[in-house]
């Protein structure tokens, strides 16, 4: 018994106590008035001559249009690997408030010091991360890549300074400042299940006196013998106190799924390999629509998918001529 406890204590020491963790901002967020800019956070755990580093979108700064000086600037940041905060100077001594993921702070898994989640979803990295591992022999493993371009990584500031985030377990959340606290509400599919997936496009717009935020995502789903990925569109009004609702896209009346390899293709998006997304746009066509063009992994089918608040998202195969 004593020996087991000693071994456990030793392992815990290896995992928790004998390494150092550093959190820095690799690329700060910049934005002009009326825009929210995103930046890259770097979390490193080092010890015994080795290190493990995660780069991810972990800061976002808002410069709200039309607000008084100092009144419209808010910053989202990761205060350590797993805690997302919203900071505002006018809040005084406790200028940073912890974002509550479905009611509580995003928690670390046991014995983990550097987590991949939460990660903010910006328009070009879309929640993907880069991981770099080095060992005592000097070998380095790199998975994924992170892009940072100040012109590209901004979105309009929305009511509540909203951002999309991927929380623990890969669940998609939408975060905003609510009257009592910054809250991240999980995206839900029909039936109330939490949506786990990878965003592939992010847009927001004003229409009908409301501000709307929308993402297209590939939702992971294991089915016997293979992996399939369903394609969903998640839309919400920015001032809503409900989480986003995700609806599956249909093709020819049936839910669109990207079989087998697509899930890895989606992962590949994190590492610079192929992704199934050709393009995405916001267009005005009988109301604002969030459009994505996708390739299906079946030798050359292209589909155009369109989402609009209140409507079921639909995809149509492109005729190839």
């Amino acid at each position: 018994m004593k020996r087991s406890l000693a071994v456990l204590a030793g392992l815990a020491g290896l995992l928790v106590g004998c390494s150092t963790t550093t959190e820095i901002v690799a690329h700060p967020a910049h934005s002009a008035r009326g825009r929210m800019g995103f930046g890259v956070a770097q979390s490193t755990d080092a010890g015994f001559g080795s290190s493990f580093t995660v780069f991810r979108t972990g800061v976002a700064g808002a410069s709200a249009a039309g607000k008084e000086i100092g009144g419209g600037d808010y910053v989202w940041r990761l205060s350590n690997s797993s805690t997302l905060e919203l900071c505002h100077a006018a809040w005084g001594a406790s200028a940073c408030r912890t974002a509550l993921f479905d009611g509580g702070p995003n928690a670390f898994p046991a014995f983990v010091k550097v987590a991949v989640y939460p990660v903010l979803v910006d328009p070009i990295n879309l929640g993907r991360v880069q991981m770099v591992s080095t060992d005592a022999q000097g070998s380095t493993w790199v998975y994924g890549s992170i892009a940072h371009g100040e012109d590209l990584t901004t979105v309009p500031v929305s009511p509540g300074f909203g951002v999309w985030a991927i929380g623990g377990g890969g669940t998609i959340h939408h975060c905003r400042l609510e009257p009592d606290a910054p809250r991240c509400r999980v995206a839900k599919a029909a039936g109330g299940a939490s949506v786990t997936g990878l965003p592939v496009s992010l847009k927001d717009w004003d229409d009908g006196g409301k501000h709307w935020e929308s993402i297209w995502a590939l939702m992971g789903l294991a089915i016997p013998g293979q992996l399939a990925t369903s394609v969903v569109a998640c839309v919400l009004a920015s001032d809503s106190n409900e989480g986003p609702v995700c609806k599956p896209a249909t093709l020819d009346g049936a839910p669109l799924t990207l079989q087998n390899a697509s899930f890895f293709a989606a992962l590949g998006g994190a590492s610079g390999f192929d992704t199934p997304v050709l393009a995405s746009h916001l267009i005005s066509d009988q109301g604002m629509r969030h459009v994505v063009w996708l390739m299906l992994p079946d030798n050359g089918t292209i589909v155009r998918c369109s989402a609009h608040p209140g409507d079921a998202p639909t995809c149509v195969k492109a005729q190839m001529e």
Partner: protein
Amino acid sequence: MKTIRSTLLLLALCPAFAACVPVYPYHVVSSHTIQIGDRQEADVVWVGDLRDGSLKRCFNSKEGPKCERVK
């Protein structure tokens, strides 16, 4: 750390196998929106076909999305 490294190794190796990663036949050349009416826009995607080097212009026609060869 060992588990993390093993996971990283698997993630790195997996895409190396052809079965894991589809080879899509198209790549994006350009995409944009164009104004086609007072309050109406259209989206256009230009794609290159890796199989024969041709260029296609994809747009949403009245009959639905269409990709026309332009070269």
